[in-house]
């Protein structure tokens, strides 16, 4: 019982993950009419969650490499509780330099999303607040789970609130988009479930003990053809979530129909779960298979970069443009991850954060425009800089960050990715560079057609500029965009040990000869590696 209290109330990851879920309960007691109180309450809950995130980081200064093999030694996570002991399933959360930045991004976006939705969401605010908070719990849990069963549970848990966000508060084709989103994600993850089951069972067969712990399953040494099948299941799941090129069709629908808040969380954090999944699970668990599949995946990433950019260029709807730009940007991240190079991985992780910030800001801005004009078509705008100068400033700022202007965050991430992947992959990096040019074209086209030029529509003359609330929604994001752009090393340094550790492990496993039958590496050897 003391353990339980310590977990729930101490400065732990458990508190961080489950505070939003617990914060849903008081929402039941608000009256239906008390919309304003609900809004303020949800916002405050978001702020508290942000504070908890910062407190956790302040309380646990450095855990280099604390997730994988060294978890038992470093003990950076919340103690491994036997959850379903009969099957060796443990409740175990852990953070390291890879997951923590994404966690912080999530808790930063939560209050901003609430603030940004004050005007756009008109119905069922209690349910909206609850869905956002539960979604945060799901996202954080998936980022921090150190047991694959637990990861799967959180991975699916976050689907339901997002499904409700799109389906209840979305646009006209919301049900179609919501169901498509749900089924696409579920299709991949069910195969991953079978793969996880198989690994847990194999571990049991080989060692006599059930375990689904990440650190234990990393010890599995599998023949190549088995690895390829399992990697296929994992990669499919994550590739759908990223989304990678042929599997991306759910994303534009989901984004266009989702309310602003849903889009921000979807683009800002949920898509990163896909790339995070590759970095954390698919690549390290199956190194040889991932190397074998690399040409195919690199090709998909390249097509995603170029195709996403070209399709974005062709859009007449602002939100769709931003949605397709996500496909292109995440193509870069995937390229960096597949390069398996220290610079590329650092760039990829940084770019995940960058994309969350700049695309989040862009979706918020599109939402603010939509709240005023109830349209997102370029044809309806033009010359907005004259009536909405503050809005124009933020749009230009976020767009330039997204384009990758030096001194803003996008540049640092993309540059590192391109540098690292050129070193590791060669010409694909050169091809990807065209994506940067295309990004400039379609994003500047958006600027040109919305805020520059002359005011052609009479409806736009009376538009009010951003309110103080809206400005404060955007300021934190822009501060970080500038900060990362000016001093990227501040943000790269904390993650570097964890990434390098993971990469060293990955490469070390690549050179081993594949076994003829599944086997488990001895624990001793792993610990020795950690000490290295």
């Amino acid at each position, binding site marked *: 019982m003391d353990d339980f209290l310590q977990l729930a109330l101490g400065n732990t990851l458990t508190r961080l993950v489950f505070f939003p879920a617990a914060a849903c309960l008081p929402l039941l007691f608000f009256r239906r009419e008390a919309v304003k109180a609900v809004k303020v309450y949800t916002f405050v809950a978001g702020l508290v969650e942000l504070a908890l995130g910062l407190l956790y980081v302040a309380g646990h200064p450095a855990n280099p490499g604390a997730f994988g093999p060294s978890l038992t030694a470093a003990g950076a996570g919340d103690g491994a509780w*036997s959850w379903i002991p009969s099957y060796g399933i443990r409740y175990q959360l852990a953070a390291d330099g890879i997951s923590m930045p994404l966690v912080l991004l999530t808790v930063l976006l939560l209050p901003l999303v609430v603030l940004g939705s004050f005007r756009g969401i008109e119905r069922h605010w209690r349910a909206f607040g609850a869905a956002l908070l539960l979604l945060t719990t799901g996202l954080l849990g998936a980022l921090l789970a150190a047991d694959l069963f637990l990861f799967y549970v959180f991975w699916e*848990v976050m*689907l339901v609130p997002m499904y409700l966000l799109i389906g209840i508060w979305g646009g006209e084709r919301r049900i179609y988009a919501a*169901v498509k989103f749900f089924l696409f994600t579920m299709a991949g993850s069910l*195969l991953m479930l*079978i793969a996880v*089951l198989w690994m847990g069972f194999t571990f049991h067969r080989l060692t006599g003990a059930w375990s689904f712990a990440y650190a234990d399953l990393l010890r599995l040494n599998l023949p190549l053809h088995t690895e390829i099948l399992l990697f296929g299941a994992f990669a499919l799941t994550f590739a759908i979530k990223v989304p990678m090129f042929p599997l991306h069709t759910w994303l534009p629908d989901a984004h266009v129909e989702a309310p602003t808040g849903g889009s921000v969380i979807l683009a800002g954090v949920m898509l990163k779960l896909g790339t995070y999944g590759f970095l954390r699970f698919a690549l390290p668990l199956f190194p040889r298979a991932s190397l074998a599949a690399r040409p195919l995946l690199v090709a998909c990433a390249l097509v995603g970069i170029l195709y996403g950019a070209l399709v974005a260029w062709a859009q007449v709807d602002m939100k769709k443009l931003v949605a397709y730009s996500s496909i292109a940007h995440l193509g870069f991240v995937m390229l960096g991850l597949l390069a398996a190079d220290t610079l590329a991985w650092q760039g990829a992780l940084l770019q995940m954060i960058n994309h969350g910030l700049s695309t989040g800001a862009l979706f918020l801005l599109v939402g603010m425009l939509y709240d005023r004009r109830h349209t997102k078509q370029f044809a309806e705008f033009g010359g907005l800089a004259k009536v909405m100068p503050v809005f124009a400033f933020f749009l230009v700022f976020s767009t330039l960050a997204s384009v990758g202007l030096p001194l803003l965050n996008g540049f640092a991430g993309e540059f590192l990715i391109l540098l690292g992947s050129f070193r590791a992959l060669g010409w694909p990096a050169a091809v990807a560079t065209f994506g940067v040019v295309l990004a400039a074209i379609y994003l500047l086209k958006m600027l040109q057609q919305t805020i520059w030029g002359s005011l052609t529509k009479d409806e736009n003359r009376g538009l009010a500029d951003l309110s103080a609330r809206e400005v404060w929604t955007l300021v934190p994001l822009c501060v970080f965009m500038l900060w990362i752009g000016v001093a990227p090393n501040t943000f790269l340094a904390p993650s570097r040990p964890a990434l390098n550790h993971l990469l060293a492990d990955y490469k070390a496993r690549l050179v081993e000869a594949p076994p003829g039958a599944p086997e488990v590496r001895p624990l001793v050897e792993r610990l020795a590696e950690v000490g290295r």
Partner: protein
Amino acid sequence: MSPNDLQSLFPEVVLVLGGILLLLLDAFGPSLRRGFTGIALLVTAVAAWAVTEIPYGTSCNHLLESTGATRALSLVVLLATFLSLLASQGYLQRERILSGEYHALLLWCATGLLLMLRATELLTVFLALETLSLCLYALAAYNRRVRVGTEAAIKYFLMGAFVSAFVLYGLALVYGATGSTRFAEIGSALRTSGMPVTASLGLLLLVAGFGFKMSVVPFHAWAPDTYQGAPSPFVAFLSVAPKASAAMVLFRLLEVAALGGASGAKWSKMVALLSVLSMVAGNLLALAQRDIKRMLAYSGIAHMGYLLLALVVLNRESLTPVIVYLLAYTLMNAGAFTIVGMLYTKPDEQHAIADLAGLGYRYPVPGVCLTVCMLSLGGIPPTLGFLGKYLVFLDAVGDGLVGLAVVGVLASLVGVFYYLRVVYTLYMKSEAQASEGLLLDGWGRAAAVIAAAGTLAVGIWPTRLLSWLLAASPFR
């Protein structure tokens, strides 16, 4: 009859006497009718306590046995009875057919089921089956003013008569081939003599008979019609409890069949085939339904398909996933039918899913409970439905049946689609018109909340349940 026998029969005795008491009260004190549900609930609770008091081992001249598995499944059956009784009160009052017979029949059904679970001998199984079936037929037709109900009951009765014939015929053949009706002795006879044709034919007929009760493809045709016409609170019972007992009998039959030498593998293949057919056909047919009761009927067929996955290869661990799955299925399916019973006014009309449009906001508690039940049926964590699926698939993967497990997850993806349809109709469509005459009584709400909360609570915290099932109970 020794005191030990009496103690082992105590749950059944309690249930039978409770039923008789209710009938007498109905005759002599009709003014007490409003309290009948309370009495019946009390009787069920006492029976549940009595179940936990039965010592492990055999009794009644080795006709009955008590193991961890039978104890757990008995409790599942009584849980289904409990939920169904809670759900029935509002329905019976609304339809003005509240009388002691209903409760008595339901309690006697439970009696038959408990006996069937624990029977180690085929004639006892048959007697229990008949006790159960007669009560079920009467209950299916209980609301006699409803024409669909009578039709449903007749269909169920005809099919049920076939089942009885199958079981009896199979029993005779097995007896002829092995000289015994006891599972253990049949097993040892088969082990020494191999599997004679008559025995395998007999076992096949028996499997078919219990396949009917479990409504697996191709013995499923009665389920949608019967579910649609019968009173919804009763369907909450019919769709879960008989399946629990039938699954146990099927387990015993397959265990015996597996002893029959080389043909054991063939039985495995047959179960695998039944499982795949049920998963695929059940889910695809459910997809096409517009009526929620028919949809749940087909989805129930699919769920029995998942359940059979654990029985393809029998080993010591096979029963745990089955029990967890049946518990999950009982909570979520009984919960769903309870809410369906509350949200639809006239039993005669179609239970169109579209009629649920927007009701999630008007009736928040039933709406949330139905959503939880649907997500659990769809196997979304952290519900018990997910855990059940997880264990079943783990068992299948452990037995080397990765292909079957993949078919299972793909089929369940189809399932997610139609379960989500209920959720989005509840919350994402606008309400057509206010429905009248809904009877959201406290009893029904309680049943819905117990089912939904149980689904979530055990799904999140299954530690105790699973360690009890796996460790504490001697599975023979």
